[in-house]
Structures are given as C-alpha cells and as structure tokens.
C-alpha cells in the first residue's frame, strides 16, 4: 500500500502529512509533519511504508502499521505503546541534555545531578516498555519502532530552556499516566504504570523547584487544583496533541483507537 502524498487523514488522532514520498525510498523523506489543520490531535505518521507487510486489520486493535502508518493500537497494548512513545521522547531529550557540549559548565552541580538521574530513569522506563511490550505483543501486533526526534533550535546548553522543557515533559508525563490509567484493564499493567507515574511526579516536583526555588511550584496551583487538590489528568488524544505541537517527534504515528 502506498501512501497518497496528498491524503488528508481524517481519522481520530492523526495529523495530515505533506509531501509524502509515494515511493518510500527513504523513510525520512516522508516524515515531514504539518502542524496545520490538525483536528483532534495527532502525532505524525508513516513509520512503515512497506507494501509487503502492511496487514489489513479488521477488528483487532493491535499496535501496528495501518495504511502505511504505525498506529499505537487500542486496549492495554495501545496504552502501553502510547506510554512507550512518551518515554522514548523523555529518554531522548535527557540523553541530549546530559551530552550537551556545555553540560558540565553551564549547569550547576545540583542541576546536573538531577538531570543525570532523570536521564537514567527515563532511559530505564523506555527500555522497560520496550521489553514489556515485546513480551506482551501477540502474533500480528508490532512493537512501536524507535522514533526519530528533532528539537529544532532548542539550545541544550541553555539552562532555562532545558529546565523549562523538562518541566513541560514531566508535567505532561504525570497528566498522561493519570489520564491513561482508566483505560488499562490488566491490574498488573495498572500497577506498573502507577510505579512509574509517581516517579514522574517526583521529577516534576524537583525540576519545578530547580526553576523557581523560592516558591511552592513543586506542587503549584497551575498543576494541582486549589479546590480538590487533584493533579492533572488528560486523555491520550489531548496529550498526543500537546506533544505533537512541540514538533519534537519526527516519526509519524497514529492513535486512532485511543480516547
């Protein structure tokens, strides 16, 4: 199956692509995203463009390529694939942070300690999901590929930029896991997500205090409701839309079976 270069995807949680290379000679060629005209969110598309193994899915909602684009799938496997995508982003971001040319000079000791821990934790989370999904995926389902990232002009040597981006990613992670828990049916998976989300919240708290020490931002009124005392929780489609708008993820995928 060949992607129509001018096709406008109207499925839920999909953004349209532009300038797709119909021949798929080079995967990177068709990983161009358009942030325009996005309705209902979406990361990009096309992880696979393979005529040969593009199975026609009917009633299963397995993660895998559909119409030339990787779809995260539905059900527990869809949520796990979604979490895997988010952890890939976090892990990649912190990998670039700790490897930035001026990491040791631009950042304070405390900042380096925290950011290095976050790098370790997020890489571990990514590898955990890779392993967990690999073990859990039934025949006919596919592991989300390694995503490609591009941070554009983001200056990894600028403390304010890095901490601000880290804050956004960690808060988003908290809201994502909090919002995804209700869609998990397997209690073991739910517990594992719970084991991770509190670590993300610990991260968010620490980053927020690093940014604004003389504050109560660690659990600030911008994220914790001042009446209920509840943290943020957002649906996968909302999170995917937010993350997509950052334009960090270059690899296209869809989430047509997630709420």
């Amino acid at each position, binding site marked *: 199956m060949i992607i129509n270069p001018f096709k406008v995807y109207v499925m839920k949680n999909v953004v349209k692509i532009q300038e797709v290379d119909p021949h798929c000679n080079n995967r990177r060629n068709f990983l161009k995203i358009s942030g325009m005209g996005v309705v209902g969110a979406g990361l990009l598309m096309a992880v696979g463009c393979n005529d040969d193994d593009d199975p026609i899915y009917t009633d299963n909602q397995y993660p895998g390529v559909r119409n030339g684009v990787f779809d995260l799938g539905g059900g527990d496997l869809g949520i796990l694939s979604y979490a895997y995508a988010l952890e890939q982003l976090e892990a990649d971001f912190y990998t670039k942070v700790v490897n930035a040319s001026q990491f040791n000079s631009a950042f304070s000791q405390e900042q380096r300690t925290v950011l290095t821990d976050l790098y*370790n934790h997020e890489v571990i989370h990514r590898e955990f999901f890779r*392993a967990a999904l690999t073990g859990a995926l039934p025949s006919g389902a596919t592991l989300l590929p390694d995503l490609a990232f591009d941070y554009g002009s983001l200056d990894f040597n600028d403390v304010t930029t890095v901490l601000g981006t880290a804050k956004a990613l960690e808060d988003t992670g*908290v809201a994502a896991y909090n919002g995804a828990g209700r869609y998990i049916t397997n209690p073991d998976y*739910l517990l594992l997500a719970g*084991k*991770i*989300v509190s670590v993300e919240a610990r991260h968010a708290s620490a980053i927020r205090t690093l940014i604004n020490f003389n504050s109560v931002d660690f659990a600030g009124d911008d994220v914790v409701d001042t009446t209920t005392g*509840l943290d943020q*929780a957002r649906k996968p489609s909302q999170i995917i839309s937010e993350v997509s708008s950052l334009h960090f993820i270059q690899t296209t995928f869809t989430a047509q079976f997630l709420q």
Partner: protein
Amino acid sequence: MNILKFLESLSNENMTKATASRRESFGQFGQIGKNLAFASIPFGLAALTSKSYANDIPVTPSDPVGALSLALTLEYLEKEFYETALSTLGLILPGRERNVFTQIAAHEADHVTFLTSGLQANGAPVPVKPTFDFTVDGAFDPFGDYQTFLQFAQAFEDTGVRAYKGQAGNLISTPDLLTYALQIHSVEARHASEVRRIRGLKGWISGDTSGLDPAFNASYAGEDNTNQAGFNASAQFGAAAGSESFDEPLTTAQAVAIANIFIV
C-alpha cells in the same frame, strides 16, 4: 496502640535521649529484639502487633469504597499532622519551608474534603476521623523538634505514595474513582520529592534506604526492587537508578498497620 517500646528500641536517636521510661523499653527490646530485626513493615513494628486495639481501623475491603476509606484515613492523618505543625509556635519558621508546608497542608485538607464528598456521592459510609497521637505515646517529638517533623513528613508522604499505589487495583472497576486516586497519588509524590529534597536527599527513593531515623527504615522495605515484570531495571545504570525508577506499592494491610501506629 502502645508501640512505644518498639519504636524506641528501634530508634538510635531516641536512645541517646534516654528518659525514665527508657529502661522499661530496653527490657521490652530484649524480649522482642530478634523479631524486630526481621520486621519489614513501614515504621517498623506494625508487623509485630498481632493484637488489635479498640480504636484501630480495620483492614479495608479490596473494593472501591474500601480504597477510598483507607485513603481518607491517611488524608485525615496527614491533614492533622500538618495543621498541628503549622499551628505550633516556633516549629516551622516563616520562610520558604513554611510556605511549602502550608501548600502541602492545603492539599491534604482538600483531599479530605474531596474524598469525603466522593464517598458520600457513592452512598458509602464516611469513616470518622480517628484520634491521632503523633508522638506515638511519647516516643517522638515531631512538634517540638523540626528535624523530627521533617522526618515524619517525609515518611508520611512516601508512605502515602505507596499506599495509594497499592489501592489502584481495587479501583480498576470504577474508572472515575481510579482517576481521582491517581490524581491524588501524584500530588503526594510531588510532596514527597520536595520534602526529601528539603532534607537534602534525592526526590526519589534510592534502594530501600530511608535517609531517616532507623525507626523508619523498614518503611522503605521493598523499595529496592529492580525486577519489574521480569525486566531487570538495574541493567542500564545499576541497582540504585533501577530502584529509583519505580516506586513500589504497599498492601492494604501494610498501609492500615502504619496508620494504626498513630491512632489511639
């Protein structure tokens, strides 16, 4: 519940501040010391108390109402702990840390209100607030000594994270309630990270070390787990990072036992 002897016997710090009742405590220690060495429950001794006391809360059922009831009791505890601390003259001096604990106290109060409303809305009985003794029969002085207060705060927040996590499975049949619980759970984790960092620790739990008085060490038992559904979390960066990356749950019985330490 009088677990004074147990707590004192586990607390090096308190041993250095021996009081008249201490000898009696040491006597107790001699009898139960071997058992204590193997205590593996948060705050140490809950596992040893096979006796139940009149005002102890029972182990809550493994269902949504049970989960919210336990959560409310833990929030009652945290709310009263912080409100008492903030109203104790000279304990938390004006400044950044007082602002932090004022914010935390506000959240715990909100959680009490929210959970009470949630139980009522579901037609479930609302547990009555227990009477708490945060000195644990005089063994500790959290409202007279700021460092002790901080230790308690850390232990309560880290315990809260573990307790909520342990209830997730009991809420899986009620998606809205599960979501609410998760939304409280992550707030407790934000609190825990901040309190730990105030104490000079990492915001995350490394291995099973508490960074607290030894009396609390057992509270962190199991946090050193690096086997997550068969995945070796220590493979990438070692056991410390592997354990930090995943927080571990408490069972209902463990969480209830901890709460009962402070219920009289």
